[in-house]
């Protein structure tokens, strides 16, 4: 395992490289003269991330969003070569999101199970409206950090619930209930996994959009910058769309979607998600 410092460095570089890989050939020409850039590394003119993307076939699975889908992601830690130049993929955690559009209350429900590092678990259920942002209606989250101690363990389980009523959020968290004004749509990253449609709406909208970061520490206005696209000619035509999400309380997050608007990468400064599988069966897989 890399130490944290090396991991962060590699992850940051890889995140940015993954993003800029998608910005076009003119840029790739520009960086080809920079001896320190990823663009000159082995793996092709756009570097190893580009090579990865070009070889990436995407997960098989239904694109029919009217059915229950499960999206599985790897949390990626990037090991590098000894020069810290060529990132390689390694898994540090796993995320499974089940998307269910068949709920009786006409919500789309995202059921999430996430494991991070050693002993940090999160389970959440998010009910989203069928508006153009898939904005949140209510959610219920449980977090557990394993302590290995019988006396401490009960203290490290927390639960959080939230409900949106018009322009107000009612939050049950940190031992109390509070009401918070939220005049714009409230979104969560699980809804954003419905890639192209939601991100396009957000980028085109001037409305204030609030982001839930669970546990709900952050509820702040966000910016979404429109997509840029890149086509990879060759053995396989591949069009990549990228969106940049940032704003107060949110580090710039790069969403990178394939031509079918499935999220290939979600990169958030220190961490990257890579979509590895989609299933569509309507059955519980957890």
């Amino acid at each position: 395992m890399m130490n944290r410092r090396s991991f962060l460095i590699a992850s940051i570089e890889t995140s940015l490289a993954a993003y800029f890989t998608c910005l076009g050939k003119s840029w790739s020409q520009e960086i080809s003269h920079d001896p320190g850039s990823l663009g000159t590394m082995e793996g092709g003119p756009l570097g190893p991330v580009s090579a990865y993307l070009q070889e990436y076939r995407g997960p098989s699975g239904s694109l029919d969003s009217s059915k229950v889908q499960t999206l599985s992601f790897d949390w990626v830690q990037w090991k590098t070569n000894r020069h810290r130049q060529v990132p390689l993929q390694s898994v540090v955690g796993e995320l499974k999101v089940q998307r269910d559009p068949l709920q009786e209350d006409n919500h789309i429900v995202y059921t999430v199970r996430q494991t991070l590092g050693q002993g940090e678990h999160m389970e959440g259920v998010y009910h989203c409206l069928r508006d153009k942002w898939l904005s949140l209606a209510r959610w219920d989250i449980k977090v557990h950090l394993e302590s290995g101690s019988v006396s401490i363990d009960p203290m490290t389980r927390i639960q959080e619930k939230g409900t949106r009523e018009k322009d107000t959020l009612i939050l049950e968290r940190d031992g109390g209930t509070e009401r918070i004004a939220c005049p714009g749509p409230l979104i969560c990253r699980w809804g954003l996994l419905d890639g192209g449609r939601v991100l396009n709406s957000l980028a085109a909208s001037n409305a204030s959009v609030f982001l839930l970061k669970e546990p709900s520490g952050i509820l702040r206005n966000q910016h979404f910058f429109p997509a840029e696209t890149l086509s990879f000619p060759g053995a396989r035509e591949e069009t990549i769309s990228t969106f940049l999400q940032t704003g107060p309380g949110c580090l710039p997050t790069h969403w990178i979607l394939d031509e079918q608007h499935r999220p290939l990468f979600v990169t958030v400064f220190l961490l990257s998600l890579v979509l590895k599988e989609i299933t569509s069966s309507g059955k519980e897989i957890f």
Partner: protein
Amino acid sequence: MAKTTKRCNIVFVHVDQMTHDAVSSYGNPYVQTPNIDRIANEGTSFMLAHSGNPVCCPARACWYTGRMSSEHGVVKNRLPLLESLPDLGQWVRDRGYQAYYTGKWHIPYRRVDQSFILLPGGRSYGEQGDSGVASVASGFLQQYSGNEPFFLNVGFLNPHDCCYLTFAPKSPAMKKQVIEKLREHLPPAPKSFDPNRPFKPHEGGEWNEDGVRLYNYYYYRMMEMVDAEIGRVYRALKNSRFFENTLFLFTADHGEMLGHQNQFKKGVFFESALRVPLVLAWPGRIPQNRKDDVHLVSGVDLPATILDYAEMDPMPDMSVARSLRPLLEDKKPSWREYVVAESYSGGPGRAVRTERYKAFLYQDGSSYLYDIKTDPFEKHDLARDSAYSDELNRCRHYHNEFVKQLKLHPDFQGFSHVPA
């Protein structure tokens, strides 16, 4: 103010690498910190709080021993804490408190679980992440059921990790693309940044003015995220049954240069690295919405304050640490005329800060002097201006007077005097 009969609980929340003015309610328009704002509104902010040594490990060792770094031995990262010194966790634990820790500790050769009951949240470097640390602290405050008073330490990592941005992106073209995307949102470069001066930090290659602005943008975003986690801990305390009898402290180990003086990170005596936020809150016991911009405060004052409120004797040889309690209770104590910080990052050195001036004094005889009142960005060194020789000598005298009070570590006795 009401008196309590039961010993108070203590919640000590600290962040890593937060400069003193990265707070929206202190007038910084480039960052939104509603949670720290709320705590400041409900407590007292010390606006002239200084790190004991503006580097992670030394500053933390100052907090937990009440001693200067040339006493406890951690003058730089990775040097060991003097084994014979007790730390704050051990001290309060042996005197009837339950002492808990979650998050970043980062004191070399002193295992945190030998001083505290360790809650999940990592053993040293904040590897659990701030969100997990806040969850643990929140859960603790909701569910602690012990009969003894508690001393909960919550060590957040950020905004520290912004410094990794100096490693990446290395490509100027990469940086340029991000800058153009975010340009209208980027804060300006600090006023003491000189784009015409050679500027090459340790990592990340050349940085220009736009790069500095991007660095500041990322830094403030990280600040906002850790602000949210701080808010969770404070909210959990307010929702708990302990709130009325708990002293809450918030501070940072050291600041961040953010491009001031064409520098990043820490280890230097300039204001941006040396000064830190410090807020104390306790309903009915500590004045609300007060900003103390008069009294000079040091990181070593925190353990003195904590022990004072916990009604315990100070740890041994805390000779220069002062409790802030008399200030918070408006007892108008006589207060120090100067505060001293140490750093060995550029060779053994100490900074002496008076009400108006700050001198950087080094073992090699070099010295610098700044008039903080007229030159808050420390752009004009006055040390070689004869008009200020009296001020510089006064600082040298203060330095020597200060060091005489210390019980220097055996390995760091070589720098104890500067000639006037």
